[in-house]
């Protein structure tokens, strides 16, 4: 018997070439070394890998020299093979098939692995590209499309149609549609889109706003507003046409002025144009209106028309108002005269400066917007005493504001048996301080006090008496006795515009109110529009304080401050202050 080594190779075009070598020996070396009978040019094979010996002409024995080898898929170091039954031995990338032909043991050798990886067949175009290195473009595109449509379209729509209170997930799904946070006032509606967006594809309607805002005043009747609105130009008509073809409400709908989703702060102030669309040329459409046309504050706003008495009078007409007092501001604010002297004398008792100031009599109201009425007892009474008697340490004072009570007090005083003369009575000059509160002010009574009650009363109400010094006195007629014309101190003159004194703290009183030169109590010391315009201009003006209509006026005709974000005012004031600081 002998070994028949049959080596099978393949040509490039796939044809098989078989070469046979007959080895007439009992032992056969297997390895990479060229000296072996079965030489395998394979780097995975040891130079001397194994030895094959015949046992009985039919069976062979394969023994590894070092590394193991494979037989029918298993890895072994030594094996006996019946050549008649056959087997496949594996050495590295070679396979040796054992079989029998006649008396010979046939060892068919073939290489199954490529010499190198580069040798292996591969699709060249894809090997050099990124195919397989990244998820495919088409697959990624479809996955992303699916994810976006599911997360940002299907889920919010599904959530919209869910009845009842929403889970946090449903709210979150809808929230991805919100174009921005709601204003502070509507914050609690965040995530509750259906509160305002009642129906799909229908924009927010006025009725929806009114479900909460039940007591909002209308600006005027809808017919009148409709008539007052300026006819838009071609472009405006085009925009309106587009808006109405997309089923937008308006013009004049709540959402025209009140825009939402603009940030989690106060709602932005309504733009000037929303007012001037009607008011700039109002008389052209509403012939019967009593309102003058009003446009940009800096350019085309009418003069202020305060309520004087019961009618509105333009400041240009220099209105005068008899408020019942004879109070000359100039005299009291003069920093040289007797009033200033008295203020200096009383500095220890009252917070006076070297002369009287506005604040000595005028105290702001609680909100700082306006001023409290001046009270005689606390303001005028600091200097103007109504004392008529002193009993021990107690000074007795006539009742202010009640003529009858004052008369009664004096009569009671003289009805007493033998009244000593009021202590302070008598002639001679006095120091200014002696006129003050808690001093018996005998000037008013003078020698009349010695002639009895009637004389003292007449003297009190006479032109040179205590009352008439400040008030208009009505003498007795018929059954009526002495009386005093009531004093009127209106708290507010501009009933349709809002003015906040607190917002003008940086200014002095005199920069707007010309009190220092007012010699007559009938002077109306309100500033005109030109005074305001030194700082305020229209909405888009370069003035220190650009001011839209909404800074002073409320569309919904309420008494209080107009709806307007305070933040804007403060910011413009700061930038104004910063700008003037730079200029300095």
């Amino acid at each position, binding site marked *: 018997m002998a070994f028949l080594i049959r080596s099978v190779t393949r040509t490039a075009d796939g044809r098989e070439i078989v070469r046979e070598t007959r080895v007439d020996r009992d032992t056969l070396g297997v390895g990479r070394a060229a000296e072996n009978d079965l030489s395998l040019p394979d780097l995975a094979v040891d130079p001397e890998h194994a030895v094959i010996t015949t046992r009985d002409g039919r069976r062979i024995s394969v023994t590894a020299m070092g590394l193991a080898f494979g037989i029918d898929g298993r890895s072994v170091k030594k094996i006996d093979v019946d050549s008649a039954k056959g087997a496949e031995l594996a050495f590295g990338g070679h396979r040796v098939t054992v079989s029998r032909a006649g008396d010979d043991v046939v060892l068919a050798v073939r290489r199954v692995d490529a010499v190198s990886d*580069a040798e292996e067949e591969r699709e*060249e175009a894809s090997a050099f590209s*990124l195919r397989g290195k990244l998820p495919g473009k088409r697959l990624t*595109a479809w996955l992303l499309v699916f994810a976006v449509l599911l997360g940002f379209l299907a889920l919010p729509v599904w959530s919209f149609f869910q009845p009842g209170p929403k889970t946090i997930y449903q709210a979150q799904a809808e929230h991805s549609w919100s174009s921005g946070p709601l204003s502070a006032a509507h914050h609690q509606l965040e995530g509750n889109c259906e509160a305002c967006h009642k129906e799909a594809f229908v924009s*927010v309607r006025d009725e929806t706003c009114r479900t909460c805002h039940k007591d909002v005043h209308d600006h005027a009747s809808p017919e009148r507003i409709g008539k007052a609105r300026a006819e838009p130009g071609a472009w405006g008509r085009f925009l309106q046409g587009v808006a109405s073809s997309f*089923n937008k409400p308006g013009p004049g709908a709540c959402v025209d002025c009140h825009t939402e989703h603009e940030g989690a702060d106060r709602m932005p102030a309504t733009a000037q144009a*929303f007012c001037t669309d009607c008011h700039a040329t109002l008389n052209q459409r509403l012939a019967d209106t009593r309102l003058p046309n009003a446009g940009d504050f800096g350019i085309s706003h009418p003069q202020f028309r305060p309520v004087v008495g019961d009618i509105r009078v333009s400041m240009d007409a220099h209105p005068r108002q008899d408020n019942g007092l004879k109070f000359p501001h100039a005299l009291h604010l003069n920093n040289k005269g007797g009033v200033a002297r008295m203020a200096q004398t009383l500095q220890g008792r009252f917070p006076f400066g070297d002369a009287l100031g506005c604040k000595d009599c005028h105290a702001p109201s609680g909100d700082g917007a306006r001023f409290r009425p001046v009270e005689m007892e606390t303001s005028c009474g600091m200097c103007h005493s109504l004392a008529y008697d002193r009993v021990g340490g107690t000074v007795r004072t006539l009742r202010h504001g009640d003529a009858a009570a004052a008369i009664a007090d004096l009569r009671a005083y003289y009805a007493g048996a033998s009244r000593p003369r009021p202590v302070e009575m008598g002639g001679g000059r006095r120091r200014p301080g002696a006129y003050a509160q808690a001093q018996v002010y005998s000037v008013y009574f003078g020698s009349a006090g010695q002639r009895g009650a009637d004389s003292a009363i007449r003297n009190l109400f006479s032109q040179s008496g205590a009352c008439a010094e400040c008030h208009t006195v009505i003498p007795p007629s018929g059954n009526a006795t002495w009386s005093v014309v009531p004093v009127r101190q209106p708290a507010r003159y501009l009933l349709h515009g809002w003015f906040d004194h607190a917002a003008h703290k940086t200014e002095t009183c005199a920069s707007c109110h010309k009190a220092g030169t007012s010699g007559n109590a009938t002077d109306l010391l309100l500033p005109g529009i030109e005074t305001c315009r030194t700082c305020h201009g229209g909405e888009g003006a370069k003035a220190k304080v650009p001011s839209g209509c909404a800074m002073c006026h409320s569309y919904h005709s309420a008494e209080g401050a107009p709806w307007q974000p305070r933040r804007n005012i403060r910011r413009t004031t700061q930038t104004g202050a910063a700008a003037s600081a730079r200029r300095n």
Partner: protein
Amino acid sequence: MAAPLKDRDLDRRGRVREAVLHEGFLRHRSFRWLKIATFLSLAAVAGYFLADVKPRPNGGSWYGYMLGTIGVALILWLTLLGVRKRWMTRGRWSLKAWTSAHVYLGLSLIVIGTLHTGFQLGWNVHTLAWALMMLVILSGMWGIAVYATLPAALSNNREEMTQTQMLEALRAVDRQLHDAAQPLAAGEAALVRKSLAQNPFEGGIFRRLSGRYPGCATAKALRRIAGNEKVDSLLTRKLAMLARVRRHLQLKAMLEVWLYVHIPATFALIAALTAHITSVFFYW
């Protein structure tokens, strides 16, 4: 349809001038589309400042809707390049003209889309659409940048070799290496075998883009095997060939990778736009 060539496009012998044939899509018709796109962007910016929208610029103002409409029309048209490019023609609407318009009008979307937002960005579907649009544009800009710079590097690296030739060269070196390594001892033979067995195209996207292969079996074999001149010189040749192939792969990866962002992000953008527009009219 081929556009008629003008006289200035032909040389004295009546042949088409090379400069005309080789004018890239960026320079197409003396930057016609760059000019158009610049005009469009400047007009959008001017309109943004001139338009009287209250209370503030916003995607929901008339100007915002206008920019949005222009933007979505542009995006859909730009997407059509994917259809158009499979259908090559010359002339007025040549693929080159179309690509030139695609690039410059795409860039003008940065202005149009961003002005449409009114700079009101947030965590919502609207900003998602804007962000995806910016991602598409930025990846496109990367694509333009690599198309403008890398082909020269790619060509220098190839030195006239085709990809098939590169692969064939590797195979030839491998076969020689295999033969030359036969006398080596088991340990060294294993090193060579690892070099032969290593796939030159292995590694993920980051390996491709970085061009660094620290686990290179050929480099390792070269370091370890000393004394066999033939094997050493073959390993050196193989390493040089691998370096060229890897540089080629790196450059090709850089040329291709942006499309893996550009195209899926475009489709995601169209989906996000669908959701964006639906949401606007749904909550009208």
